């Protein structure tokens, strides 16, 4: 019996749309303001992007399973405090980084445990830890800020290798890893399948709870890693680190075409979504120098892109 692969409609239209929008934006921006397309400037300013970008990777995986993690920003606050407190008592950056990562994993683990073992809805769990993590950071540090971690450490985020910011390499590596994980490993397949039908995956002998636990823990780990970059970039560790990050990260993932209901989306889309939002913000702030416009435009971009996807999806099925 001969079995074809079957007719597959063009599967990359999400990415295509994002790509077209991004190029249109860059061209428009380039015409309006030729200085905008300066590569060196773009690379310098890309420093604003990497923290969101890193957090967007595990967030993509989590949203693909139909979950959500509202607590990543707060987890950063907690991690930053852990970093600062550890540094101020030991003076060792390496040890502080380790502690920071561990605290992140622990926080993510708590989320994962509540979600997978206690069966509480991720939105509720992470809404609770959203408040709890930030509060824990504030309480432990008493609102104190820690700084002066040394020039070397600030190179981690501010330094450049070959004109490219160091975190970009990290992101590139991890994004590739995530993309490979999603497309080629059993774990990645489970992530998609859980997003569509968790029950069926459970019946297939997959330990769904463990997959989820690992995902949320890795989100926590990434919050820890991001905190290290954040602390390095601003030379400040304080409980308010990462305030509001969760919404920006979710926005990027969703604009990148990942379905909030799970099952659909990929890392490529997330990367494009991140770039689109980043460039839009930059363009808006260059063009009008009005901070509040950025939030308006990004908000509209979010709703608009989803409307666009819906429209295209309907057309695609016709």
């Amino acid at each position, binding site marked *: *019996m001969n*079995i*074809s*692969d*079957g*007719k*597959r409609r063009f599967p990359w239209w999400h990415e295509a749309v994002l790509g077209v929008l991004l190029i249109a934006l860059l061209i428009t921006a380039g015409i309006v303001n030729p200085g905008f397309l300066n590569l060196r400037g773009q690379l310098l300013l890309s420093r604003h992007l990497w923290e969101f970008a890193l957090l967007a990777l595990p967030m993509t995986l989590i949203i693909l399973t139909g979950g959500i993690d509202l607590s990543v920003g707060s987890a950063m606050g907690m991690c930053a405090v852990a970093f600062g407190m550890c540094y101020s008592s030991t003076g060792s950056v390496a040890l502080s980084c380790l502690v920071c990562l561990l605290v992140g994993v622990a926080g993510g683990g708590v989320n994962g445990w509540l979600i997978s073992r206690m069966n509480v809805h991720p939105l509720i769990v992470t809404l609770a830890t959203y408040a709890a993590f930030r509060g824990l950071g504030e309480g432990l540090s008493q609102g104190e800020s820690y700084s002066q971690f040394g020039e070397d450490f600030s190179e981690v985020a501010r330094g450049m290798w070959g004109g490219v910011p160091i975190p970009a390499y990290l992101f590139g590596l991890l994004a590739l890893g995530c993309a*490979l994980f999603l497309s*080629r*490993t*059993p774990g990645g*397949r*489970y992530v*998609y*399948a859980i997003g*569509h*039908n968790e*029950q*069926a*995956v*459970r*019946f*297939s*002998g*997959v*330990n769904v709870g463990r997959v989820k636990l690992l995902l949320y823990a890795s989100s926590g780990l990434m919050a820890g890693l991001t905190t290290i970059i954040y602390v390095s970039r601003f030379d400040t560790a304080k409980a308010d680190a990462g305030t509001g990050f969760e919404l920006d990260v979710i926005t990027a993932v969703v604009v990148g075409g990942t379905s909030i209901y799970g*099952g659909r989306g990929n890392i490529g889309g997330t990367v494009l979504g991140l770039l689109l939002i980043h460039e839009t913000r930059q363009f808006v702030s260059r063009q009008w120098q009005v901070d509040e416009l950025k939030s308006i435009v990004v908000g509209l971009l979010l709703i608009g892109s989803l409307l666009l996807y819906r429209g295209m999806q309907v057309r695609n*099925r*016709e």
Partner: protein
Amino acid sequence: MADPLIHVDRLCKSYVGVHALADVSLDIRAGEVHALCGENGAGKSTLIKILSGVTRSDAGTVQLEGKPLPAGDVHATEDRGVIALHQESTVFPDLDAVDNLFVGCELRKWRGLLLNRAEMRRQTLALLERLGENIDPTRPVGELPMAQRQMVAMARALARRCRLLIMDEPTASLSARETQVLLQLVRQFRSQGVSVLYVSHRLEEVFQVADRVTVLRDGHHVDTRDIIDVDHAELIRMMVGREAAELVGRHHSKSAIGETVLQVRGLTRSDSFHDISFELRAGEVVGLAGLVGAGRSEVARALFGIDHYDSGTVTAAGQRLPVGDVAAAMKHGLALVPEDRQHEGLVLPMPVSSNLSLSVLSSLTRCGLVSRSRERELVQQQISALSIKTAGMEVAAETLSGGNQQKIVVGKWLASRPRVLILDEPTRGVDVAAKAQLHRLIRQLASEGMATLMISSELPEILSVSDRILVMREGQLAGELEGATATAEQVLALALPEEREVSVSS
């Protein structure tokens, strides 16, 4: 002959270029039970949706007593007395019985501003009493057993002036006893002058209750006959379009029974089953019969590690299985084809290939990555072995018919090369031809040495496929019968609770 109650004239409907209905005409008389038969995909559901106002037809009309029914308007249709009970029981699980009965047609007071709750409650109680059901009207319906949910849905139809009741697979999740109660109700409706359009895959029911039968095939109207003019084989031929004698009858190609591969001892879970012990030997098919709610699926799920159990042991291939560990069960050769195909068996939007390889994915890896070629090979093999009809391995599983979907679920488990195959309602919602194929497959696997535990609510299926039959009653094993000699009466006698009436006459 009296004027028909419903006159369906040349209905057409197509989805994405595929004809779901083509020129279907049909009369339903007042006070008759009219059965609608056809394989999956024959257009039954579409016809029902159009009749009940859920969707509009592309062409054609539906007339109720000579006046056209408004198209695509459930409210208006229901107001005219055409009420549908849809395939998936359409109750609101979080609402209580009163709300379930009256949502969409609430009784009101104060010029329609407020609900007349007292009256609705009174009527609900009266209706449920009429149905002979003792249902707590304050409990969310989702907490009720399946059969009672169905009753609530029926009561909902009774609550309105019902002229035509459309029942789409109403017994799909009911036990034999409950089915009889339901059929009795259908007769009761008829005696009150209500017409019933009865859709079912279970032909026994059709012969029991229907006055006339209409057969659809591939969206076309094949024929409408009085039920006394057709017999089983002919009806099947009309549905399938070919001689189907081979589809019925018992398979008893006694295969060689080997050593014990699964041993269950004293399995107990306080809220669902108690002290279950049995063994399964290589090469035999054991049927697990019983009423819905007797705890059969729960036992299967516990065996396989989906749910936990309190005490007892499960031993497979000489190894005791840990509690609640699906992976371990799989490692020791167990496989479970679950009851609910759409929710537990398949990831519908994902490709056929991913579904077939889902349970064995980790064995298809090379350096941690899924090997595409090995996956392809496996999938190709399963598709041809089970003759799954699909446009390709990359099309979404949801595009396949019910029977082919079920084959995917079976194929997915056969891919794990199990020694013990547990099948929970393997042919529910599957059309006649596919059902027969599945039955043949089960026997064939047995002859190759597979030990099979098959849960089924369809007695003919149990009787025709099993070597041995275990019967469960209220969470306990009530007895064991020899497959070759058992009769439906014996099985029922074991399955029915002792203290209750066995007869179903009202």
